[in-house]
């Protein structure tokens, strides 16, 4: 059974009221959605909030999913919209800028690790969190629109046409935003002597 078929079977069962099917569907995508949320919000609490909003949105609209596009495309369209809503509500960019100013101490990272019930290898997770914090710091220099384009292109591998449709802009505008974001990231990394 292909991944798409499995998705459709789980969606159908969830629509018939199966909590177990819904749980399995969530398990398949929660990591992608959580890490998407983490890169956009920069902190665990807001990432969890955003993930919950995304899956609640998916649950409420599941009956509208017609299978015209892949489930992941549909899911990330909802995720994109929820992220935009959240940024509007909380002035996310501003809060992220202030967060970027704070160096995440090892103690903070260890606290997060202690809260992660699924942590298998604390050393590896510590290293991952430090590396990820540096990437979040890079993304932080971008404005919200550029950040979303980079997220959808680099991490979610969407086409520019799909990004354009999600953001209600032209494909050329999406490309321009992507190019501008890359130039800003290059300047930032050169400044920090991190680009080889």
């Amino acid at each position, binding site marked *: 059974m292909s991944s798409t078929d499995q998705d459709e079977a789980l969606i159908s069962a*969830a*629509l*018939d*009221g*199966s*909590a177990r099917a*819904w*749980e399995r569907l*969530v*398990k398949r995508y*929660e*990591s*992608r959605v*959580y*890490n998407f949320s*983490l*890169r956009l919000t920069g902190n*665990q609490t807001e990432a*969890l909030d955003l*993930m*919950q909003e995304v*899956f*609640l949105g998916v*649950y409420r609209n*599941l*009956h509208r999913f017609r299978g015209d596009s892949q489930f992941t495309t549909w899911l990330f369209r909802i995720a994109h919209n929820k992220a935009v809503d959240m940024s509007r509500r909380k002035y996310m960019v501003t809060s992220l800028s202030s967060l970027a100013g704070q160096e995440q101490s090892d103690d903070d990272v260890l606290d997060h690790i202690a*809260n*992660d*019930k*699924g*942590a*298998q290898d604390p050393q590896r*997770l510590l*290293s*991952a*969190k430090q*590396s*990820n914090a540096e*990437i979040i710091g*890079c*993304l932080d220099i971008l404005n919200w629109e550029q950040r979303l384009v*980079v997220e959808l*292109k*680099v*991490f979610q591998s969407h*086409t*520019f*046409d799909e990004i354009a449709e999600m953001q209600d802009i032209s494909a050329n505008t999406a*490309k*321009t935003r*992507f*190019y501008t974001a*890359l130039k800003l*990231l*290059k300047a930032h*990394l050169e400044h920090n002597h*991190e*680009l*080889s």
Partner: protein
Amino acid sequence: MSCHESLKLVPDYFDETLSLQARNALEAHLQVCADCQQALADAKSIKAHLRHWQDEPVPQWQSVPKQLQDKSAPVKPRFSFWGQWAPLAGAFVMAVAVMFNVQLQVEDNSFTFAFGSNAGIDAHKITAQLAQFETVQRALQQQTLQELSSQIENRQASNNTRLLETVIEQFGDSTTRSLEQVMAYFEAQRQEDLRRMQTSYQRLADSDFQTIRSMQQLANYVQYQGSQLQ
């Protein structure tokens, strides 16, 4: 100095939907343009840097919505057979009940249905009430008309006096006879205005009573229909 083509070339390079022809043109330009080669190398390097992201484990969270936990009801808003047709059936039953004037009489141990009885609508009672209402309304309107007429009469008399005074002031040499003629003319005008005004008010009142009569006719019709059904 960077090549202006890089603005288009770099994003296009990451566009999987680019046509073969466009991709060939892009590759051809890359072969000869050192600036674009550098811009593309930078873009690839940045992408690789970002892709160092290591997925973090998802913390414990409530993945099953409360609605799905509380009741194992389907999420989809699809109606069952009865859920779909019940509103329509209800509307139909109501329409039949209204059309045939169905009455339900509930007693201690039983209930009875009655079809077509006109007991629910007592036409005589309605007619009597409407007649009483008409009488009261007529009396009220008559009183109002009289009050209005007297007010207008007073106001006009006062206006006439003022006009007369103005005329006397303007034509101080006028004779008493000519003044009497002017007075007589004003009086005739005043009477005519009053008559027209009363006619208009009467028409207005008549249209109200016409409405009441229509309601009486409707009540009579319902009574007639009821007696036909019995």
